[in-house]
């Protein structure tokens, strides 16, 4: 009898605590969205975060973009030349980068490079009781610490995704045109004929904005609600990468189904 009640109370506790977690996360997201325009007034803090999240990610993003472009060029050519349409290489490289790989791979790299840094920074601030000290001085830590980082991530991520796609297309061009010898005119004209500015490039930008919001929010959430111990910060950092990667991939499916299904 007591075994049944223990089991029941365990189920009840886990349901109640997960509901509480969802509620806290939603409240934090709401406060961040409300406080973001306020944080924009002190643009100094936001621009420091853009520097920290964006500029430092530029190297890894552009190098990865270049190599992804190289690989797309090689693999795409291998399949296309079987059907005698290797001129469509530019279209293949551009569409796969602009629609999918640009936003998604950038978001995954961004989660690993910038999201972890955000979580660790805020987790350490919490364990060092800096956030509590701010509250004691009547400074809202969500407004002073979290909102500028949120905005910084939101601004940096679409720019990084655009850099990734552009560098990737140049990489595909380098492999396809310079190395393999696809006709340069056909490479660009097929690309321009098949890529729509609003449907493809525009939807890619919207995707990268959504992913930027997701990754930054998950990182801030994990940092803000982590256990203020060394193990807690370590666990929160790991969870940031796992959760934001999964969220990005799942959201990508939903967004693709909404945007590109016929």
């Amino acid at each position, binding site marked *: 009898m007591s075994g049944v009640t223990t089991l029941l109370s365990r189920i009840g506790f886990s349901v109640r605590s997960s509901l509480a977690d969802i509620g806290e996360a939603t409240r934090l997201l709401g406060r961040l969205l409300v406080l973001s325009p306020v944080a924009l007034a002190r*643009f100094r803090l936001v621009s420091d975060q853009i520097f920290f999240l964006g*500029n430092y990610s530029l190297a890894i993003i552009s190098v990865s973009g270049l190599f992804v472009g190289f690989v797309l060029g090689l693999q795409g050519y291998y399949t296309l030349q079987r059907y005698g349409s290797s001129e469509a290489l530019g279209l293949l490289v551009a569409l796969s980068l602009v629609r999918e790989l640009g936003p998604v791979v950038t978001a995954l790299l961004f989660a690993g490079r910038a999201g972890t840094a955000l979580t660790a920074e805020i987790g350490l601030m919490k364990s060092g009781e800096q956030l509590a000290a701010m509250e004691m001085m009547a400074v809202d830590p969500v407004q002073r610490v979290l909102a500028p980082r949120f905005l910084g991530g939101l601004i940096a991520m679409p*720019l990084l995704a655009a*850099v990734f796609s*552009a560098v990737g297309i140049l990489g595909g061009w380098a492999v396809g045109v310079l190395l393999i010898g696809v006709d340069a005119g056909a490479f660009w004209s097929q690309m321009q004929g098949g890529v729509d500015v609003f449907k493809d490039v525009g939807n890619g930008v919207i995707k990268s904005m959504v992913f930027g919001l997701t990754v930054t929010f998950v990182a801030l959430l994990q940092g803000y609600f982590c256990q203020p111990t060394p193990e807690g910060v370590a666990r929160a950092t790991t969870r940031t990468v796992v959760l934001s990667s999964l969220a990005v991939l799942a959201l990508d499916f939903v967004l693709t189904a909404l945007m590109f299904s016929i």
Partner: protein
Amino acid sequence: MQKSRHDLWVGLFVVIGAVALLFLALKAGNLLSLSFEPVYRVSARFDNIGGLKARAAVKSAGVVVGRVTHISFDDKSFQATVEMEMEQRFAFPKDSSVKILTAGLLGEQYLGIEPGAAEKTLLAGDVITQTQSAVVLETLISQFLFNKAADASNAPADKP
């Protein structure tokens, strides 16, 4: 607001991102092909449009002079109605004919407009009556096979 040493680099980052977006829009997406020229709308009826799609090009002598805007099915005449926007600066005779052509052997389909000889020009809302449907590969093959069969059945009859 005091300046910070980050300002230069943040500015550079934002500019690089903007340049990348511009590159995607202009070089990959060909934003320049979006024209804001004044247009006039005409329509044409086809028995079969094959694989023609909205936003396909309307070309005359190989030069793009307009775009297909809308394709619908007319359940009175059981024909396809193709509406297109022609650029205002290009006027065509009223008895011009349109046909559905294919770029390359397996390329995408587009409309070719061939000027007629009439004095009057096409105006907004006009319907082009002289049309030529898309070439459907299956029909071609079946015609070819039918002719072959006809030849084969005629040939023995001639011999005796």
